[in-house]
């Protein structure tokens, strides 16, 4: 059969569209957990909580701050998959629950129906209800971290729990996933280029952190020199978030610094798993003394000293008694007015 040009073009177009539609449930953000419309909600949790950064998009973060406690306590990772349409008790619709890991930055989509890297969870690791599947995996088994020494390793990977579902018996499997991002690598700190401090704020110019997972920058300061490889949470250091203007300027405000004091100022970054970098090389900065309008007024010889009173003001003086007498009189007047005139008794109407 000879295909016409028009038929060929139409056919190829239909094929491309069909491929895209068919792949749609599996195509997602390369680093984000995969989703399917058959599963309405995916919730990974660790009970009790370990001060994780807030979970988002079916992702839980584990950083160095939580690692030792998690390895020590070995809590259960619980992943709940919920649906409003399927009967998850039926094997017609559920193909199994799996886990697998992937290095951070990998973009390959994994479908455990076909991939050999997946490990199928045994039946005792998950419960099936009509509208819910709950997987429970001890943290050490899930993460591969078994001791405090493992928390000092350079692990930076994504680990997934995946469920295979389909909407019709015999149909294709689609997947829903939860992700646990285990990041035990500290980010690089930003480089401090310049700093200017007043009693109320510090403004910095910086070179951003070289780490692609750095999410926030912080100002770190101390009255003593800051040694290399010091964490910003160390004793004697004060850490404040930087409000960034662009990528290379930031301000930490709401401070209470002493004008004229010498400070040592550095920067730190924090990544999406809550890991702080070490403090950058610090600079010594003198806090500039500043002037307010009040300082200018007093230096110019202004007679006002503050305080409350009807005539000459005194420092910290209380309002004069006359002020209260007038105020009470006004209150009496306006209360009287607001209450209104008194009601008159209705006139009696007698019978004729």
């Amino acid at each position: 059969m000879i295909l016409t040009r028009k038929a060929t073009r139409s056919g190829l177009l239909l094929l491309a569209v069909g491929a895209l539609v068919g792949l749609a449930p599996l195509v997602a953000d390369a680093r984000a957990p995969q989703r399917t419309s058959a599963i309405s909600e995916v919730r990974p949790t660790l009970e009790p909580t370990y001060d994780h950064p807030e979970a988002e998009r079916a992702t839980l973060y584990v950083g160095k701050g939580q690692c030792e406690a998690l390895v020590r306590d070995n809590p259960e990772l619980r992943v709940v998959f919920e649906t409003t349409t399927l009967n998850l008790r039926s094997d017609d619709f559920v193909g199994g629950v799996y886990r697998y890991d992937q290095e951070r930055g990998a973009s390959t989509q994994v479908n455990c129906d076909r991939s050999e890297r997946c490990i199928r969870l045994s039946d005792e690791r998950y419960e099936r209800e009509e509208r819910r599947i709950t997987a429970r995996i001890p943290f050490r088994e899930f993460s591969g971290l078994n001791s405090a020494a493992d928390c000092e390793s350079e692990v930076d990977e994504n680990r997934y729990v995946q469920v295979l579902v389909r909407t019709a018996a015999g149909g294709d499997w689609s997947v829903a996933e939860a992700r646990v991002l285990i990041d035990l690598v500290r980010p690089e700190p930003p480089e401090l280029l310049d700093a200017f401090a007043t009693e109320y704020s510090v403004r910095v110019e910086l070179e951003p952190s070289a780490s692609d997972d750095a999410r926030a920058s912080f100002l770190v300061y101390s009255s003593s020199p800051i040694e290399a490889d010091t964490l910003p949470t160390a004793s004697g250091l004060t850490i404040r978030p930087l409000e960034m203007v662009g990528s290379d300027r930031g301000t930490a405000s709401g401070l209470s610094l002493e004008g004229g004091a010498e400070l040592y100022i550095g920067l730190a970054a924090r990544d999406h798993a809550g890991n702080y970098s070490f403090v950058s090389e610090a600079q010594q900065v003198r806090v500039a003394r500043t002037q307010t309008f009040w300082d200018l007024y007093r230096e110019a010889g202004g007679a006002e000293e503050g305080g409350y009173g009807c005539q000459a003001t005194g420092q910290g003086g209380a309002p004069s008694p006359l002020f209260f007498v007038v105020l009470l009189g006004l209150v009496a007047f306006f209360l009287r007015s607001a209450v209104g005139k008194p009601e008159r008794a209705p006139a009696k109407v007698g019978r004729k």
Partner: protein
Amino acid sequence: MMTLKTKASLFLCFALLTLGLSQSAFAEQDRTRGMMEFKLGPYLPAVDSEFGGDGPYAQFFGDRSMLSGEFQLDFHLWQGIGKLSLGTHVGYGRVQGRLRTEDGEVLEGAERVSFRTIPLRTSLVYRFDYGAMRYGIPLVPVVKAGLDYHLWRVSTPDGETAESGDGARAAGGRAGWHATAGLHLHLNVIDRRSAAAFAHNWGIKNTYFFGEYTLSRIDGFGSAGIDLSDNHWAVGLAFEF
């Protein structure tokens, strides 16, 4: 021995108390009870008058005046040819300037110093609305005069009250007086149907748009200290109930 100021203050206090307790005697024939006013206008306190002109206010804030808003509530004392009322006002104004170093360099960025005032006033108000009520003439002249007490405060970028090196705190109050003349435009004549609905639903019998000019002397009656006086205009809306 009592000074003239003390005698005047005591008299005013007595008058207020008397009026407050016997207000109903004046109100029996009233068809309206009082007035609410909302107004806005610039306010540039005469802080630099203490220094002969170019002083710390101009140096720090430049020629920026405060945008001052004020609410006034009056109750009618007498209604005949016009209305005589006693009013109380409360307002708010603020101006901000950037922090500067000791060398006078203005610091760019978000750090600002605020200078705030809260004017408290009481006024005798006379409205000549006889023409508006009787003959539909939409213009109503108004005059006011009374006593003021203005609260003021200078705050640092962290929201705290500023303090000078000698420990003087930048917060206090200053007393004074004011006199105002204004012209109100009676809006009921423009849309009588809406005015009737307003009266029926909200009890607002008359609505005005107005402009007024105020002379205020807030200098502690000539005593030493910060001068918050200003001659300023304002515009606003008034609702008679």
